[in-house]
């Protein structure tokens, strides 16, 4: 069976191949696979930021959103573990998108749901150019995000019935 394990996925994030090292040319360009991995890291950081801001704004949601946030932090850990930092480059550590938290719980949950759906779709776009192990990680994270979409839809329905 071709099933993968979170703990045993090998690292396949090699830099783009060069004909030969040229010490004066500076660091080699990043391969498309590494660029995609770095984008996945940034996207995960952006999602985590939105979750934290939403939970800070609506403390009543913290109990339900906490487990989803923890899963995103686990995604980030696994993605970052697969990045081999090339000379002169560091793993991105900054959040690139900081949307405002909407004014009601229901709309805040809707924003999270939209972000999760977009993130899941984006993971699937990374599959084709990825190594088998990395593709499995992207697909698993995409499936996780798909389950978050469902969980957030349920939460939003409950919030609509019992506005806090």
């Amino acid at each position, binding site marked *: *069976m*071709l099933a993968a394990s979170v703990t045993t996925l090998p690292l396949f994030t090699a830099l783009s191949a060069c004909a030969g090292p040229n010490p004066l040319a500076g660091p080699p360009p990043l391969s498309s696979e590494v660029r995609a991995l770095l984008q996945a890291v940034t996207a995960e950081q952006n999602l985590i930021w939105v979750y934290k801001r939403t939970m800070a704004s609506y403390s009543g949601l913290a109990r339900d959103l906490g487990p989803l946030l923890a899963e995103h932090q686990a995604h980030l850990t696994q993605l970052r573990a697969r990045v081999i930092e090339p000379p002169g480059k560091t793993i991105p550590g900054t959040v690139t998108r900081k949307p405002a938290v909407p004014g009601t719980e229901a709309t805040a949950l809707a924003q999270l749901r939209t972000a999760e759906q977009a993130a899941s779709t984006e993971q699937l776009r990374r599959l084709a150019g990825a190594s088998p192990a990395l593709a499995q990680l992207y697909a698993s*994270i995409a499936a996780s995000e798909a389950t978050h979409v469902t969980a957030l839809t349920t939460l939003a329905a409950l919030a609509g019935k019992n506005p806090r």
Partner: protein
Amino acid sequence: MPAQQPPQSLQALQTALAAEHAAVYGYGVAGAMLTGHDQAKARTDWTAHQEARDTLQAMIVKLGATPVAASPAYKLPFAVHDARSARRLAAALEDGVTQAYLGLVAVTDKTLRAFGALAMQPPANRAADWRGSTVAFPGMRGSRSA
């Protein structure tokens, strides 16, 4: 004329089909222990697995191979004797199917990769529903329900 696929792709498809066969059998056991809303849900999920099984069988035939047959019976991962254990079984079945589709994501064929990645999302969602909680890495070993 059958399309050419590397043996790895065919094997991954057969593994997914075997998981769907097991799910179809397992839901028959689980459904017998459930009532009301849960039983209706099990029936819907059972139908979804039958449809997925038929899809995989057609894909394998298109490749010129013989689809793996269902076993007459399957060894359940644990004893199922009440509604609680039936729900656990349903979650375990969905985890198994999710893991099998994740195997398809490791093949080199981009179309099959995309198929596997999309196909694992419904069982991942159903597993979360039966379990009552999500997991960080659906399909990966270590993310399965007990």
